[in-house]
């Protein structure tokens, strides 16, 4: 028996998976998103156990495993805790590269919110930079109703 198979053409079967999803936000996130869309306000929820204000809000605290019970409005301004600059375009990105993503701690919140930075050169972004939410003109009940965060004072 020779290696009769080694000369065989390797068949590559091309296909794709394209599946629609309808992800339910749930009533907690729905309140957060409708308030953002309709009032331009950012709300968190406070854990009765560790007292942390979770933004975006959660129905139960992942740290204490108890139900959160207190809605708390937080500021639309905060501080960049960390950031990265996207250099290459992919279809899942909300903006054309290059642009910066930042982990933002809003004033009054105890958790981070990741969002896009705008109205700033990526090279100028720094940890500790204060930023402010810029609302989108056409708001749809999505986290992208915040178009981006811009440096405070710009």
């Amino acid at each position: 028996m020779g290696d009769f198979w080694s000369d065989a053409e390797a068949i590559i079967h091309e296909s794709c998976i394209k599946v629609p999803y309808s992800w339910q936000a749930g009533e907690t996130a729905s309140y957060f998103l409708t308030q953002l869309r309709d009032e331009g306000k950012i709300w968190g929820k406070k854990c009765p156990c560790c007292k942390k204000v979770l933004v975006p809000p959660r129905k139960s605290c992942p740290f204490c495993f108890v139900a959160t019970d207190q809605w708390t409005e937080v500021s639309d301004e905060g501080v960049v805790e960390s950031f990265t600059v996207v250099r290459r375009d992919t279809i899942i990105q909300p903006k054309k590269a290059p642009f910066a993503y930042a982990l933002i701690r809003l004033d009054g919140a105890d958790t981070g919110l990741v969002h896009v930075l705008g109205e700033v050169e990526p090279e100028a972004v720094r940890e500790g930079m204060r930023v402010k939410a810029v609302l989108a003109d056409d708001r749809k009940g999505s986290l992208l109703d915040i178009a981006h965060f811009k440096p405070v004072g710009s």
Partner: protein
Amino acid sequence: MAKRAAIVGTGQTHHRSIRRDVNGQELINEAVTRALADAELTIDDIDGVVIGNMDHFEGINYVDCWSIDGSGGYLKPTIKLTTGGTTGATVAIAGYHLVASGMFEKLLVIGWEKNSESDTTGAIITCSDPVIDRVVFAGAVAGLALEAQAYMHRYGATPKDAARVSVRDRRHACNNPYAHLRQEITVEEVLNSPILSDPLRLHDMCPRTDGACAVIYASEDVAEKITPKPAWVLATANRHMYSDFTDVLDVSSLHSMVGASRELWQKLNIREPLKEVDVIELYQPYSWAGIIWIEDMGLCPKGEGPRLLWDGVTDMGGELPINPSGGVIATNPIGATGLIRCAETVLQIQGKAEARQVPDVKLGVATGFGGCFWTDMIAFGSKKPN
């Protein structure tokens, strides 16, 4: 180091076609919270978590991590298992293995699904071989229709016989406050429902459901301190048999069920399961399985399943009630479905099944079925095994 192990608490969500009020994590949380309350334990008592679902139904493939708001798995050992339709039964078997190993004392086991979030067939199709099966033959309904056709052809049963199975389970579901479909249907309604894939009609098939289930395992060291009625695991068996759907030429029997049930009865020293088993929660995704698979399980010879159905042997009040909960025909959150079979069997052992309680259950069997025709089985008993 080996320990005997039991389920000491169960919890499940109220199952619906769409649970718009909660996201997936919150759905899981609901079942977990209820299981902990049932066992009168807190999340701090739990020393490990096993969770399962099918990735493509929600499009999330790191569920062990993503789900901790719901599972309570924060900084605990957490393992995700996915085995298609059998997922819920597989997590139950795996949970038993972990506790029986002596390495976990109190273990939380979760199955869940938000079936409403995607195209069920589009997702299920990912279980099958992409080059062979997916091109010509795949999805949930067609494979089962092939089994029903083969059985009908070989044994002369009719769609009316199969309709009797749907009628039974939908009637049973009316006793279960957690069930998804809680309206009775008639044989005529089944036979007049829209045809999907010959011979299967809409009411021959399970629905797709949003739901979650959680159970708590405990080792023999603590089980009887947690509850006066632990449901002890007596034996498990499972069989896989798949590379392509069309590998098996005789599809008038579920060969994995034949193999798994023989092993289970042997381990339990059971000769006549129809007489010796008190209740079965059968993972029965379509009506014909209620005939074909109980024959394969050895409850009666091949071809005699319809007689058991029409004689009411498997109804509530019959010699061996099947699916007091209403089963999969009434409720099918796929990753939870097998675990619901276990939880419902445990409720029967514990005497907590309320309106759907079968009297004096000492031995109950739960099964799981997976998309590519595999079978899981678990036997629970009221008496601590020797």
